[in-house]
């Protein structure tokens, strides 16, 4: 009798054992923390209409220097507007101006040449007119504060600003808000490529490029700007970010110099408060491996940051986006799915011209194939 009693639970145990090991792979790291600035993965063929990773293309307009503006307050919305520099030929006068387009899915922008709909084109929203602009506008930086959209841009005489309530019709201020400051030793060229954000303190901060470095200015209202000094310990006003100096003689065999050892430019600033409550000022930038004007110059998108309202930026040695196609001028669109990075980079066609390409972070995110392009700019 006891033997039978022994066999019964043993048989039951074996039966249960045989039903075990029926599991699946299981998730791998959900909701992982990130600074939200990459590294990025360029979009794949099945994530864009047209040719990946390009989302805005035009051989004549040569769209470049994008600036993204979220169109909805809802973080799950993928509606985004892009303000870009475009080459215009108006009555035989070739010059650059600011154009706008938009996408409902963060990828399928109205007016790209890959859209089979004839006649579509982004909307011209800002063109040169003032003397200090010398006929060309470029490097837009757009942000919304309250109900007003501020569009900062660069021209020959410095950095200007225009405002709008609908994002399409802008009113320019007559004079630049940040012009050349002759006493500054490091700003050997006029300030350009602005990027503006309002910090949690309510102070406006502008990061801009000049010479081969990046400087910073602050403003109480976005209109009156004062240059900031990254290092008050020195008498001069210092840039917040400069190329990484390195000694070529210390470079290991077969090693490449730092990707940003020649020039840093095209800042894109995006402040955030970390989970620990610290202000983290995140800046994406274009890093060049050689000085401006050098032959066979390579670029990549880098990430620098600091804690707090002021001070120099600290670089991350690893580029966040590097594809070897002269990628430059980063801008971000952060939504609930991930962070989209837009840059201009060489087109996939011959002859080569700049086009707007897109990438996404985290790299594990995959996007569904879009259905249609947006139907308005």
């Amino acid at each position, binding site marked *: 009798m006891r033997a039978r*009693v022994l066999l019964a639970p043993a048989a039951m145990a074996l039966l249960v054992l045989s039903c075990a090991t*029926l599991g699946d792979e299981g998730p791998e790291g959900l909701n992982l923390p*990130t600074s939200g600035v990459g590294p990025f993965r360029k979009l794949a063929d099945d994530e864009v209409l047209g040719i990946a990773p390009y989302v805005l293309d035009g051989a004549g307009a040569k769209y470049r220097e994008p600036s993204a503006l979220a169109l909805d307050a809802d973080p799950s919305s993928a509606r985004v507007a892009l303000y870009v520099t475009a080459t215009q030929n108006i009555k035989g006068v070739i010059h650059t101006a600011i154009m706008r387009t938009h996408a409902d899915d963060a990828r399928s922008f109205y007016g790209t040449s890959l859209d089979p709909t004839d006649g579509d084109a982004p909307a011209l929203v800002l063109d040169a007119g003032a003397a200090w602009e010398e006929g060309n506008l470029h490097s837009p930086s757009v942000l919304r504060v309250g109900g007003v959209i501020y569009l900062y841009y660069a021209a020959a005489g410095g950095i200007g600003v225009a405002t709008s309530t609908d994002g399409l019709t802008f009113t320019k201020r007559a004079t630049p808000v940040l012009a050349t400051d002759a006493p500054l030793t490091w700003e050997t060229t006029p300030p350009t490529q602005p990027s503006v954000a309002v910090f949690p303190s309510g102070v406006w901060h502008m990061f801009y490029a000049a010479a081969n470095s990046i400087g910073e200015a602050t403003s109480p209202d976005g209109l009156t700007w004062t240059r900031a000094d990254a290092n008050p310990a020195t008498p001069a006003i210092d840039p917040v970010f400069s190329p990484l100096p390195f000694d070529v003689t210390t470079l290991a065999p077969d090693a490449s110099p730092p990707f940003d050892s020649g020039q840093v430019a095209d800042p894109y600033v995006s402040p955030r408060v970390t989970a620990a409550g610290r202000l983290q000022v995140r800046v994406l930038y274009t890093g060049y491996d050689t000085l401006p004007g050098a032959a066979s110059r390579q670029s990549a998108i880098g990430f620098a940051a600091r804690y707090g309202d002021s001070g120099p930026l600290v670089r991350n040695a690893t580029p966040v986006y590097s594809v070897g196609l002269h990628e430059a001028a980063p801008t971000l669109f952060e939504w609930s799915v991930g962070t989209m990075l837009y840059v201009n980079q060489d087109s996939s066609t011959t002859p080569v011209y700049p086009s707007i390409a897109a990438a996404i972070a985290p790299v594990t995110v995959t996007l569904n194939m879009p259905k249609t392009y947006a139907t308005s700019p």
Partner: protein
Amino acid sequence: MRATLFFRASCATCAFACGLAASARANPLDAFGFGSRQTAMAGAVSADVHDFSANYYNPAGLALAQRMELSIGYMNVDQSLKINGLDSGVDPVRGLVGGLVAPGVIAGIPFAFGFAIHLPDDRLSRVRAEQQDQPRWELYDNRNQRLYLAASLAVSPWPWLQLGGGLSFMSSTTGSINISGQLDIFQSDDSQVRHSVDADLTAIRYPEFGARITPTKDWAVAVVYRGQFSLSLDLNATLQGNISSLTTAYYDLQTTSVNNFLPQQVVLGNSWEPVKGLHASFDLTWVNWSAYVPPVSDVNVVLNIPAPKGGWPAGITPPTTPAPTAILPIVMHDRIVPRVGVEWRAFHADHWEGFVRGGYEYDKTPIGAQTGETNYIDRDRHAFSLGLGGRAVDLIPELPRDLRLDVHAQLSELPTGTTLKASPADFIGDYTAGGHIWNVGVTLTAGF
């Protein structure tokens, strides 16, 4: 006198433990216990265990078995671990637990053979070698997803001394993959490749020894040693391809990683029965975490693509050899884990006994502050356990002579803490992490 001695020993070990702090989460058993009675007592049983779980807690305890026992049970661990307030999706740990004890006598000396198994529901083992900067719950995610299998022997040369030892088993993986063929860079559809795979699962054994001494009738002390093991994963890949009849490319990849590392441990335990029916136990476990090897792949790649005669066609730039992985060191500290357990025989009758159990365990994280590029996340752990047990002896002839049913519930609380990154340009940035873990289970034991 004995009470004073026990009290002093416990106070001394408590003070020692609080000074050095603690942790021992190396596999599902280290982290969540083995068997319901033992888990309910927070694992403080090295001097008070004699069923199948003695294979893990103290093999010497097997020699205390009075009759052949067969145990079967189930444990379910749900992990609600969060980073920045969001669930990290750490897999549950659940599976069968069980084993047997077969006692006997040789030349008048009692001995026993034991066998124990933890068989996970989902997988026998899992390999995850993440990038070293990817945040992961280092001690709770992948490490506990594995099979535990052990066999032990124990003897009792004198009634006051039991000695035991055993082996636990795992397997490591060594493999290679070879790919060769034709790669057409102009018409990729015409590429043809052949591949072969050669993999080997090799057995790994690691030892465990234990001793138990009963200085008095109601006081027992124990010492246990658990060996260290490394579960490695070595993969080699070789690619040889003729590229469009232009040149032959050679690609050789070697990866080496330690997917699971169990540090050696030493346990000191004692158990005291101050009054009939009440057992109090206290264990200290030293864990050699400083020898820890992180589960990061060491990747070395050799890529050789000679240029064809006349150079590369326009527009084609051959890839260059990637730099080898630079593995950042992980800072781990040796820890001492205190465990306290109590078992009270709440009632008893002629054929029945009922037990109430409780326990507490404190694991101070062994992982150093993650202020740099690595993100091995962990937090201190407070584990509170409760359990109930019922025992029927010679109840009816149709049932086994000794039938025990034990249940347990354990709540582990990992207080939320903040990790501050030294570099503002860190890709991950600051984060908070914490959470809790529920562990419930049941074990049925039949003695014949």
